[in-house]
């Protein structure tokens, strides 16, 4: 027995050492690639990295950012890299790794990347850390802000006019400031055309569970909701499913043009033109003229807009479309902006 235990110990010890050796043999000679990377950086190739909190297949927030990265790659002949982070621990890790590899720009696609950017940026002064929906700035930290709520307000006008039941819904991934702000504006927009309208709010609790998104949508539909504004990324894809399977339910998409996901049920999408915004930053960084700041983009720069689905345009009351046009003009002119919840105003 004792004999067996001893040999067992030896076997286990060998397991780990041999595994490590095996792996190192399999990948031997690999460390050379780092010097290649440095060479590329010194010859002036722009290197851009993107961290997203969710899958880029969501056709929404993350998909838009990935399209932005591709736009930079194509327009500026940049070398690009993307990673989907799962935990906050990975924010620092990847910011740091990209910094070490000499990337020029690292986009953290969400306000949640701000703390990590603040911690890592001072160690890598040659890398520009840009957080979307972030308002942190520093010598090499910048933010990209979008007046998404302006588009959400317009969507509210459409929803308020299009509903027949007088009950509309909003479905979010998680209760986060930008999402809450967009729902607040949406409700205000809906009430501007229909003051007695009822708005039901649900949060799925995550951004990637499409079946949970579908459940939430079906629950809302069961309560009489016939127009849903979804802002739940990959989980929101389930909302489109639910609408397809229910009669007379319409959806308004968010973040990217989602009209093609389900053209028979989508009234329109509140679009953030992320590729445009990303390219703007990358061009300035490449030219060496970028001044770290919070860049606010919205209706005026045509980065945020409401895109009506042409297939269902005729089902929207003409008065609503007229109202959308006139409010859009005011938003562009700056004479009007969508109301924001009081708590967010304090936080800023």
């Amino acid at each position, binding site marked *: 027995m004792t*004999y*067996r*235990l*001893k*040999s*067992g110990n*030896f*076997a*286990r010890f*060998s*397991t*780990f050492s*041999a*595994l490590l050796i*095996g*792996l*190192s043999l*399999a*990948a031997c000679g*690999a*460390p050379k*690639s*780092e010097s290649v990377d440095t060479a590329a950086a010194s010859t002036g190739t722009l290197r851009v*990295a993107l961290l997203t909190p969710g*899958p*880029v*297949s969501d056709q929404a927030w993350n998909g838009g950012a990935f399209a932005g990265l591709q736009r930079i790659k194509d327009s500026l002949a940049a070398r690009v*890299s*993307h*990673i*989907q982070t*799962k*935990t*906050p*621990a*990975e924010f*620092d*890790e*990847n910011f*740091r*790794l*990209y910094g*070490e590899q000499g990337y020029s720009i690292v986009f953290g696609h969400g*306000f*949640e990347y701000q*703390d990590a950017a603040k*911690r890592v940026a001072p*160690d890598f002064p040659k890398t520009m850390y840009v957080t979307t929906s972030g308002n942190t700035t520093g010598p090499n930290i910048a933010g990209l802000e979008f007046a998404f709520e302006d588009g959400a307000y317009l969507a509210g006008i459409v929803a308020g006019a299009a509903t027949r039941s007088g009950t509309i819904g909003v479905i979010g991934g*998680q*209760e*986060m*400031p930008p999402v809450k702000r967009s729902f607040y504006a949406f409700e205000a927009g809906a009430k501007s055309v229909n003051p007695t309208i009822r708005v039901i709010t649900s949060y799925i*609790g995550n951004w990637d569970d499409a079946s949970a998104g579908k459940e939430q949508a079906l629950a809302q539909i069961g309560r009489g909701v016939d127009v849903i504004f979804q802002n739940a990324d990959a989980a929101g894809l389930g909302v489109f499913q639910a609408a397809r399977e229910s009669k007379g339910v319409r959806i308004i998409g968010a973040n990217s043009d989602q009209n093609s996901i389900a053209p028979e049920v989508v009234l329109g999408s509140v679009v953030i033109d992320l590729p445009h915004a990303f390219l703007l930053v990358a061009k300035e960084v490449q030219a060496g003229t970028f001044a770290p700041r919070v860049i606010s983009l919205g209706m005026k720069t045509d980065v945020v807009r409401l895109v009506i689905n042409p297939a269902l345009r005729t089902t929207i009351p003409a008065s609503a479309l007229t109202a959308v046009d006139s409010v859009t003009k005011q938003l562009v002119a700056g004479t009007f902006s969508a109301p924001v919840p009081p*708590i*967010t105003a*304090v*936080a800023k």
Partner: protein
Amino acid sequence: MTSRTVLRALLEPLLAGMLALLVLAVLLGASGYPVGEALTALWQGAFGSWSVIASGTLVRATPLLFAGLAVAVAFRAGILNIGAEGQLLIGAAAATAMAVNLPPGLGAAGLLLALGAGVLCGGAWAAIAAVLRLRFGVLEVISTIMLNVIALNITGLLVRGPLQEPTRTFPQSALIDQALRLPRVIPGTRLHAGVVLAVVTALVIGWFLRATAPGFRLRMTGANPHAAASTGRIDVARVTLLAFISSGAIAGLGGAVEVTGVTYALYENLSPGYGYTAIAVALLARLNPARAIGSAVIFGALEAGASAMQREAQVPAGMVGVVEACVILVLVASEWIGARAAAGGRLIRGGTPRSGPTSAPAT
């Protein structure tokens, strides 16, 4: 030791590693990704430089080691604790609550208080499942899984309620004060003192199980609770209770270390499932605490390398998850088969989790 045993000891792990690589290559190739590039990235991301070893592999291995130890201790005592995930989260939440509410100026004492809070609350969380099992015969496999879900939602509630950061905007806690953070072991990397703590914990637990009387009682209870009880010297219920609570406390410490060493704040998605991967960590180490160190490093390397596959070879996250899971399966399965072969067809020594006195027989 016969030459055959030596040969087997050398060949088995090599075969397992190569089999894992083969499965990986086939999966990647079949899905149309550049195999060579992806495997190079995997290696580079895990062991390519001192910086990634310290900041990537070892930082990721630390919570896996704590949670793996928690699982190993419980399994050795015959407790199927699937709840390391929840215990880790509760530990993280408790440590954060302590750290952000302490008066300033406590320094190292404050850090110890925060870690202590994690240990206590992680243990307390496990105690719920322990009492449910001992009093009411509730299977701990079920109760701990349920408690994981509850812990996750409590964390979500805390970061939107009592522990939310001062501006009350973002779903996360306030940042833990600089003085209450674990110091960095290597300046310029993310490697924090928690890794040392984890290794020391592993060695201490290994010694405890191997060389102390309570450790022997724990192993005896796990190996055969009826035999243990019939000696008249072992209070099986008491040993089970204490082992279960200790298991939770270790996982809780892991959570506390993660917030004070890595994230510096409580987040809802703090853990990508450390408590579940920990089961694989513990099984690969055949429930031996000292071996768990190596096992945790392997899994830490796998995760660090997998993220490099995303960055460098454009393998999407979903595919990376599939690849990771397959490698885990191959590694654990070949370990298990190898172990059975080495033991002459018998199940592995002391490692098979046996059912406790109140749970249904496993076979």
